[in-house]
């Protein structure tokens, strides 16, 4: 979480695959819709420009040093600087990056800070989705879920590539973990099972990301033209293929999946707890009413 720049960089040193920014604390996501009024420090918290967890030339020849110098050094940096300028002195100042994104998304009626905030998050997530010597196939639980939810790894790759290719204009393609929940305030999924928590491929325009749909992003590819133009020009399909074959950091994706699953499980427990509490409250209320009626009723035969 962004308290100060110092703690943020310390935590990233110990957790290189932090990708989905957040702790294993299951209550974190439940609180994130409310701006954090506690823990305000006197120093204005600045969102920082995090470098990729590798040097800018280490993804060559698949992604050139030159394009990373522009992409990270100009585009990503620009989003960070513009965001900090936009939020200073406002109620968004001091909030975590994710909180700023959700607040500025504003149910689709974006506040001015949305694009910059989301793009900062998206780019950090993108750098951490790649690594030198990446590519190959995923393994373990991630591979199991990919095969379960897409039929095969090859079918997943096809769907992911297609999403990346058909995102008109600027945007992103994602692999995300979706914990199905009924979208009604007080309803719960009547038949929760492992099958409801599934992997999906989604695409999004411009700065939008799956956090705003309450999904857990696991992997992303940037398909804004600036992400590939210097290396691949108009050949977006080639860029996507090379990304899949040579760049994807599957360890990071697996790690993010574990976090997503434990968050989903934690949320389920929390909702179950709340439901039980509500049921108990309702039972207690109705008992009180019955007692009231018995003492008032003259037709009572409870003697």
């Amino acid at each position: 979480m962004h308290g100060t720049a110092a703690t943020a960089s310390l935590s990233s040193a110990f957790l290189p695959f932090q990708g989905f920014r957040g702790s294993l604390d299951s209550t974190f996501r439940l609180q994130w819709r409310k701006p954090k009024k506690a823990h305000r420090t006197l120093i204005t918290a600045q969102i920082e420009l995090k470098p990729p967890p590798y040097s800018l030339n280490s993804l060559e020849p698949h992604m050139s040093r030159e394009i990373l110098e522009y992409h990270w050094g100009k585009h990503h940096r620009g989003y960070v600087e513009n965001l900090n300028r936009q939020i200073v002195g406002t109620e968004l100042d001091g909030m975590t990056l994710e909180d700023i994104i959700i607040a500025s998304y504003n149910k689709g009626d974006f506040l001015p800070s949305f694009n910059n905030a989301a793009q900062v998050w998206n780019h950090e997530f993108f750098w951490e989705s790649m690594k030198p010597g990446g590519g190959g196939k995923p393994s373990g639980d991630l591979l199991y879920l990919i095969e379960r939810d897409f039929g095969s790894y090859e079918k997943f790759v096809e769907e992911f590539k297609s999403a990346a290719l058909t995102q008109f204009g600027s945007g992103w393609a994602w692999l995300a973990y979706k914990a199905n929940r009924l979208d009604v305030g007080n309803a719960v999924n009547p038949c929760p099972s492992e099958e409801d928590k599934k992997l999906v491929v989604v695409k999004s325009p411009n700065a939008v990301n799956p956090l705003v749909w309450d999904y857990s992003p696991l992997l992303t590819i940037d398909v804004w033209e600036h992400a590939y133009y210097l290396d691949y020009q108009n050949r977006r399909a080639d860029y996507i293929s090379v990304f899949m074959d040579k760049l994807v950091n599957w360890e990071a994706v697996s790690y993010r999946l574990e976090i997503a699953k434990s968050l989903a499980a934690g949320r389920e427990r929390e909702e179950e707890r709340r439901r039980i509490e509500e049921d108990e409250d309702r039972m207690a209320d109705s008992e009180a009413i019955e007692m009231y009626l018995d003492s008032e009723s003259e037709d009572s035969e409870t003697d």
Partner: protein
Amino acid sequence: MALRSVISRKTLGSLGLGFSHARGLQTFTLPDLPYDYSALEPAISVEIMRLHHQKHHQTYITNYNKALEQLEEAMAKGDSSAVVKLQAAIKFNGGGHINHSIFWKNLIPTSEGGGEPPHGALGWAIDTHFGSFEALVKKVNAEGAALQGSGWVWLGVDKESQKLVVETTANQDPLVTKGPNLVPLLGIDVWEHAYY
């Protein structure tokens, strides 16, 4: 080197094969540039002009033609959901063709007057509606820089109110999507491929 927009007509008529109706679908081909690829240097490089014209614009045309063929089939079959589904591809690729066709004509080498401020009726209209040519440039620059993602900046005229407007559109949406009375005068491609 004169601009010519070649429109080919494909007709599967009843070539003695007993089809019950003639099928005529107008498809499109890439218009020539009214100047060499290198003519706009150093403002726009020859590499970008070539890529922009032969790859990007051509791709929009290819996909536009494909979408039109699929639309014709869907309409003939009465397949409404296919018809509606194709609208996005038509808007995107057809819009791309429209917009880029305008774009090439908006540019001219400096040796032939490119970059000179407008005179005559247009110059007067700009001064009237924006105060000065410099003010217009400032406004167009600001709108273009502020556009998030891919899109176009336009100087247009509202046919009904007879006023000049500066507008932006997203992706390949033509100016008319911002108002049915808007006519594009000048369009600036601010997709990253236009300047990267």
